[in-house]
């Protein structure tokens, strides 16, 4: 446990220590960029809603979805551009974007084994916004007073440069939800 959490969140401590305050709640993490549409290509918003599927915003992920689609299971609380559409992979940033040192988390059910997994959503930073594959699912998302699960904020906030580029979604453990 400590190894995992340490690895995961070590960076955030280092980032927070740079600042003047250091609080337990500094753990808060999450990438911003909630918006309605799920796809924006070449500057044109194509409005497709997260709720235009059965199940509303709960992101009842379909097993057959690829990681370049909003409904892919890991993206149940992701709000932003999928890095898989921007030169990255599901867990790696594009070659020239820096992975965020702080992050928000979600708990998503993998339809393959019906288990709940803890997902770390890291923003990739320092490059102009990617603009492709805009997704917005909000399962167990909460306002900024629950910062660790808040997704309407720039999680490149602790990086320099801090421009938001896109978002990756890495499995970091098993989880259980109470949502």
């Amino acid at each position, binding site marked *: 446990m400590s190894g995992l959490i340490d690895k995961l969140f070590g960076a955030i401590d280092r980032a927070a220590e740079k600042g003047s305050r*250091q609080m337990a709640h500094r753990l*808060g993490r999450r990438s911003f960029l909630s918006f309605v549409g799920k796809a924006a290509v070449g500057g044109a*918003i194509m409005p497709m809603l997260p709720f235009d599927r059965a199940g509303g915003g709960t992101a009842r992920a379909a097993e057959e979805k690829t990681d370049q689609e909003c409904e892919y299971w890991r993206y149940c*609380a992701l709000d932003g551009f999928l890095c898989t559409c921007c030169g990255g992979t599901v867990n790696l940033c594009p070659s020239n974007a820096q992975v965020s040192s702080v992050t928000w988390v979600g708990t998503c059910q993998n339809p393959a084994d019906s288990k709940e997994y803890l997902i770390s959503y890291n923003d990739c930073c320092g490059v102009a916004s990617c603009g492709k594959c805009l997704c917005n699912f909000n*399962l167990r998302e909460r306002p900024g007073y629950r*910062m660790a699960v808040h997704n309407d*904020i*720039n999680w490149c906030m602790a990086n320099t440069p801090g*421009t938001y580029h896109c978002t990756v979604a890495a499995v970091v453990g098993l989880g259980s939800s109470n949502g």
Partner: protein
Amino acid sequence: MRLGLIAAVLLASAAIAPAHAQQAQGELQPEEFGNVKIPPDTEMLFSVDLALNHVVDGRTYVLDAKTLKPLGIIGTSFLGMINVPNGTKDIYVATSHQTRTTRGERFDFVEIYSGEDLTFKEEIPISNNRAQALNYRALLQPSADFKYLYVQNATPATSVTVVDMAAKKQIGDIPNPGCYGIFPASKTATRIATLCGDGTLGTIDVKADGTGEMKASEAIFDPDKDAIFTSGYRWGEHWVLPSYAGNIYIINVDGETATLIDKIEVSKGVDGDWRPGGYQPLAVHDKNGVAYMLMHSNGTEGSHKNPAEEIWAVDLKEKKVVGRSKSVPGIALTVSQGDSPALFATDGLKAEVVRYDVPAAGKDFVLEPSATAPGGATPDQIEVR
């Protein structure tokens, strides 16, 4: 000779014969250049566009609130916040600039724009820790007397920057750990409340030296089961805040700690699992004491940003729904405060703004768009003044 040379080169390029040009002077006056003057007291609509695909170039589109014709644009840059309070003609912005546009060093500012002609007036440097977020009113709030401007920070540790608007400088950065959003008191310029992750509200009294301690209220809400949206609306001395499960919390923040005045269970007893949704789901007409809410059906955990299917009118004194109307898929809502109020909604699908004239008292609450206009690329906040 200078003019002769200029003219000759111009004419060579543009193929204008001098004879013709001279003729022109006799026949017509060249049109003047300059600026449009916005008529005083024009009611303005503000469509705040975070411009997600170009996130460093956010902007607010300013429209004539009656016609929705464009008046101009105010640049709000990189996830900048905007507040357009009544009681002043200024427009407040808190934003970040980078020295190399999308890279380089970050500098945060409070910027003041004229509400009369939309021009830039001045900027005040602030610490580089403000929350770079979607557009939420609660992240930038003036005190009731406009002496202070409060900016919500997140590094992700949360704190509140206090800007002295007379001294034109930041005087403090007060932690609000575990809490988020700024809800100023209506009477005490130095008092603000904030929503906290344990279901309380914190109240901070800003001291002259810019410090302050947060005092927790009793538990007021359950962030797991009925999280309160940080986007609320001031109603006289109270703040009116919607919640994920479909309740309205009326909270007084004027005391040393915040107190719950009322909780209206808006969705209770209504078929269809209706819930508020979007980024700014509620607006209040102050004088009439009516809240308007963006509502969607089949609400579930995670549906709290879904666009509206209906707009509901809730009488805050009678504590009941007094009207339901179809709506564009709204994700942000506001209302003008005159005797004949109008609602303005941001259509999240079309990225349009829509004006609805509120039916007069006694008439059926049926909303029909009286005007629509483009709202930007990814608008997420709407204000009228």
